[in-house]
């Protein structure tokens, strides 16, 4: 029997977005990444080509994050004390892109300062040629205070600034516009809230080829089913032509999984949880692959071993299979 494979016909596509700028485009990055552009559900090659592969980023910090799992701190060792060295190590570990996430306080517990944030961002740009995302510590006022000088210092680099939320997007959008950067918006696991936030960002003046969205995903065991379905619904809406859902999705898998008990701690846990390190890496890997199946365009991880495993899956998924 000759089979006709059932192809969906879509009218829309995911917005294509370029992150990072090389010298030719007014930046200093050695490479740039392009995400988005899909015209099918994830990797349905028999409908159409997948134009850009999911990008894998590693997260680093401006100060040694003492609240991170010991597994991560042990892995990075000395590099975690210095953002420049850490950026270099993350690039060598195989990242396509880096996330510099700024701390709330310095190691002595004093509030982080614009000077320190700017210095960390510059150190990262100097020691690595990868495109960059920079996220604030997640408190509206401090985010603005730290990210505006960072955006000025990185002018022209097409950095992704984050994270925009509905109450706190104007300043970030304005500084992104002024300095040729991009933004990422995060809404709490809801298709309409993601959409509304994109409308706000667009109305504030930023073109949609400079906007990413983080739909908030949860981690394996901690709400991933909501993230998974919200992402599938956003991608379906994008393909159906709903412009405000067409931003590429950037998901914070490392952040979500390394705060779970399964990953964070190795003692006083049930014996059936098995080996701590392998469990933690699996937790991050399973979460990442699940979200990639749902349409993630940028996956931000914390452990290079997870990155290696996710990369193996992505390398295969991005190639069209022979369907004998």
């Amino acid at each position, binding site marked *: 029997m000759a089979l006709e494979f059932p192809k969906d016909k879509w009218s829309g596509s995911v917005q294509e977005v370029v992150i990072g700028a090389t010298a030719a485009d007014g930046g200093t990055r050695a490479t740039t990444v392009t995400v988005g552009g899909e015209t099918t559900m994830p*990797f349905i090659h028999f409908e159409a080509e997948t134009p850009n592969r999911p990008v894998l980023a590693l997260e680093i910090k401006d100060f040694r994050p003492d609240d991170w799992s010991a597994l991560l701190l042990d892995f990075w060792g000395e590099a975690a004390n210095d953002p420049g060295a850490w950026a270099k190590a993350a690039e060598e570990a195989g990242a396509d892109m880096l996330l510099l996430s700024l701390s709330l306080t310095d190691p002595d517990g004093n509030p982080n300062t614009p000077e320190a944030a700017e210095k960390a961002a510059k150190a990262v740009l100097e020691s690595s040629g990868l495109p960059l995302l920079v996220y604030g510590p997640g408190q509206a006022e401090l985010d603005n205070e730290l990210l505006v000088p960072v955006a000025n210092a990185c002018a022209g680099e097409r950095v992704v600034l984050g994270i925009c939320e509905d109450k706190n997007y104007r300043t970030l959008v304005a500084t992104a516009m002024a300095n040729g950067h991009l933004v990422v918006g995060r809404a709490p696991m809801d298709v309409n809230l993601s959409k509304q936030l994109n409308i706000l960002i667009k109305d504030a003046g930023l073109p949609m080829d400079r906007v990413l969205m983080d739909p908030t995903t949860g981690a394996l065991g901690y709400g991933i089913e909501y993230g998974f379905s919200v992402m599938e619904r956003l991608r379906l809406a994008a393909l159906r032509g709903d412009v405000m859902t067409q931003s590429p999705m950037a998901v914070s898998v490392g952040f979500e999984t390394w705060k779970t008990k399964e990953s964070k701690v190795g003692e006083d846990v049930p*014996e059936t949880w098995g080996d701590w390190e392998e469990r933690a890496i699996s937790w991050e890997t*399973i979460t990442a692959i699940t979200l990639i199946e749902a349409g993630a365009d940028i996956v931000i991880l914390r452990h290079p071993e997870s990155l290696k495993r996710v990369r193996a899956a992505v390398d295969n998924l991005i190639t069209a299979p022979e369907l004998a």
Partner: protein
Amino acid sequence: MAISGIQIYKLLPKTNCKDCGFPTCMAFALKLAAKQVELSACPHVSEEAQAQLAASSEPPVRLITLESDGSKLEVGNEVVLFRHEKTFYNKPGFFFLVKDSEDPGAITEKVKEIDAFVVNYVGIDLAVDGFAVKSEGDGAAFAAAVEAVRAGSKRPLILIGDDPAVLADGLAKLEGEKPLIGTANPENWEAFADLAIANKASLVVTAGSLEELADLTPKIKDKGLADLVLDPQVTAFNDGLAKHTILRRMALAKNFRPFGFPIIAYPSQAATPEAEVALATQAVTKYAGFVVMENFAPETLYGLLVLRENIYTDPQKPIQVQPGVYEINQPTPDAPVMVTTNFSITYFSVANEIESSGQPGFLLVADAEGMSVLTAWAAGNFDAEQIAKDVKKFGVEEKINHKSIILPGHVAVLSGELEEELPGWEIKVGPRESVDLPAYLKQVA
């Protein structure tokens, strides 16, 4: 695919002769759609219509049942491509592979260990579903391997091999069970179909291409065996995703009967244990009904079983716990009061941490419509007013001799409003993540 009353009406004689006991053909059609009468009540319906109605009343993905002494596994009956459209119903079965070339004593030991694996996740015990026994040639060795597995576990089995005669030797050891056997291909299918029918087994069917697979399953059905499982010969992520998607789309969207069966996936064929976990992840998210694994490791199996639980949760029903005050570690009136939401994952994470900290405490579970702290806060279901309301409703004040309450760190912004809603109370801000609660409690205690 469910068929509507109108669609049924079109297939009826439309004479309104009332012989079925209903005033009109339409009335009969509506009763039929609601499954309240049998088609046979109409003596005038054509054979062709009968065949069409019978086919359309079948589920788009057939329900396959495996049974053993005391256990039962149901797979299939799926109706949607995306879980948000309704839900995924029957969780894929996880089976661990043993080969008959292994020593029977070693098989029993290995099976016992895997069989005993139980891990608790939000109050649910997660375990594997059974074992797949693979023949590498000899009937006596296969029978011995099946016996060795049975000595270690009572869970349902899948028997896999190329030679139906060898499988028959294994099946002889499974009196009264309903296993899954395989693998039938375009050459050997008749002998396999006979064997499956004789043993009340379901049958795995494979072919070198999806076209050949589509040709094969109707032949087996015509021979009288309807309990089939599809093996689309997946070798990697990319063809796995494509083949599973095509099979499921054709079964659901096109009601293409030759593919209306569950799919079996073999992450066991991966080159490394890490790749096996990754392939199993894709299998769970993308339509597998049976997942056959080779490498057993608690630390990875735990994650995969949790994923299966998550993906197969009904998205229409947020999983909730009862709002109220939960007493943990026998608190006395001076114990701290913490507040969280009634989303079950949130509740279990917080309650587990308090419990394992050894510190007594009261946990006020506010009615936040089953959402997590941040989501509920964003949706307006977890605000100062709601918390104050639940403090009163559940009589927190009567249980304690102080007036202080600990908020989750994520909603520190509610402190001010909560002070207004609860005059005279001290509002403290706890950690953002439950994993940091024990350290926090030690510090406030």
